């Protein structure tokens, strides 16, 4: 994992920034979010994919692409979380002021 992180740091930074932007927007976004059921199913899907990746079930290049995708997704989630939290902090300070 360390190897992939060092090898692909550029792509990961990209995913983090993308997540940060999405998280920044999400706080004030008024559109429809995903339903709880869909979110559960999506979580399950991600959990299954992680399990498959850890178990090395997918061979060759597809296996590598799966690993890469999951890492980018993880970076994206981190970016989203940081972005949303920061936006929320900024918004709440503004309201208080």
């Amino acid at each position: 994992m360390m190897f992939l992180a060092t090898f692909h740091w550029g792509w990961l930074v990209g995913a983090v920034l993308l997540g940060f932007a999405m998280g920044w927007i999400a706080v004030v976004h008024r559109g429809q979010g995903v339903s709880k059921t869909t979110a559960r199913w999506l979580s399950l899907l991600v959990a299954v994919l992680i399990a498959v990746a850890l178990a090395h079930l997918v061979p060759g290049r597809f296996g590598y692409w799966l690993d890469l995708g999951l890492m980018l997704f993880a970076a994206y989630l981190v970016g989203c979380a940081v972005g949303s939290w920061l936006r929320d902090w900024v918004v709440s300070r503004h309201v208080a002021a």
Partner: protein
Amino acid sequence: MHGLFRWSSKWWPGLIPLAILWIVAAWTSTAPLEADLAARSNASLKDTILDKRRIEVDGRDVTFSADAFSEDGRRSSVASVEATPGVRLVHDETRLVPEAKPFVWSAERDVVRLTLGGSTPLPASKNRLTEAARAALGGVEVVDRMGLARGAPPRFDAAALLLIDQVGKLKDGKITISDTSVSLSGMARELGGREAIAAALKNLPEGFSVAANEVKAPPYVFQANKDPVAVTLTLTGYVPDNSVHAALATTAGRKFFNEKVVDNLKASVGAAPGFANAVTRALGALSRLSTGSLVVSDREVRLSGDALYDAAAGQIRGLARELPQGWTAKVEISVKPAAAPVDATVCQQLFSELLGKGKIRFEAGRATIDPDSAGLLDRLVEIAQRCPGASIEIAGHTDADGEDGFNQALSEKRAQAVADYLVKAGLPADRFKAVGYGSTQPVATNDTDEGKAQNRRIDFLVR
């Protein structure tokens, strides 16, 4: 925390650009990643000895195939590929190098090349043997057909290196190691090569033994060529040692009193028993020819040329009987055409000239003609044949040593012995008169050895 869940339901639109990012990343990074993993997997194996190593990378999965030379080496090589950072799975297709039983290695020499074949235990020893062969046989093409196998006997390299040195001493032949037994066949390059190889084989590493040594020595050749135009006798080839060399040179000087002896002989071991004796006899026969060549090869004597007259040809053809046991002779003798007849005075001149160059020798104090004088006598016969009408007095003389009566008798007997030789050669007996003068007609002083030697003589006087 609750907020995070609420916001996260709205994070999904970013997944679309993320998917695009993912595709682009996968598209551009796969090939460099595979190349990087392959390079580092290979680097991790650089200290491991493997044959036919092949590494293929598919994504992060490595297919590793190689022939290892031991089970430990095989396991550790797989482990080091597995430990390479970034490698996800290793498909282990390694195996052990096949075991050869018996473990056979060979070096085959022919005129233009040396072929190394069979098995060697490691790539390093394969290279070392090839290099050693190149060094030992400078200029000869070395063909490496050696494979790799397990099961080599201990100290195999040392044994093979020693044998490669021996291949250099062969003209052609084959050396084989089968497990720990060594067999050799072929022909040594030089005389003494066979003996040198046999001596070197004593230094084979412990555990190795010689199963068969069938290296043959090249023929032991001695050649003598009598050239009547240049008036030379050329000796080439080999003699066993310096003392035989000196003895043969002395004999040749006496037998070929008229010719200049060109001595190109070299000393070498490997002569057949009875060599000196056989060569002396054969040189004696050659000395009786007007032109001829002598080739002694191992135990075979080949003599060809022209005898001076019929009876001599007959005697020379009987050379085989004079040779030591086990020797054979191939004699091809023709008879030189008779020379034109000449006047009695010319005959006298020819006799004097010839006897001025060489003297008829006898055994000390006896009337037996020394075999070294056969060539000279044959020439005297030839001259006598050219003046068939002339009567010849054969005069024997001695030096002044000893009693007069004994010297008188000795001189008569010696003169008679020479006359008998001429008669045996086919000349009519009534043409010759053997006379002994004892020491009464010296031609030099009897006070010095040199003078005495000149006084001991046979003269031919045409009457």
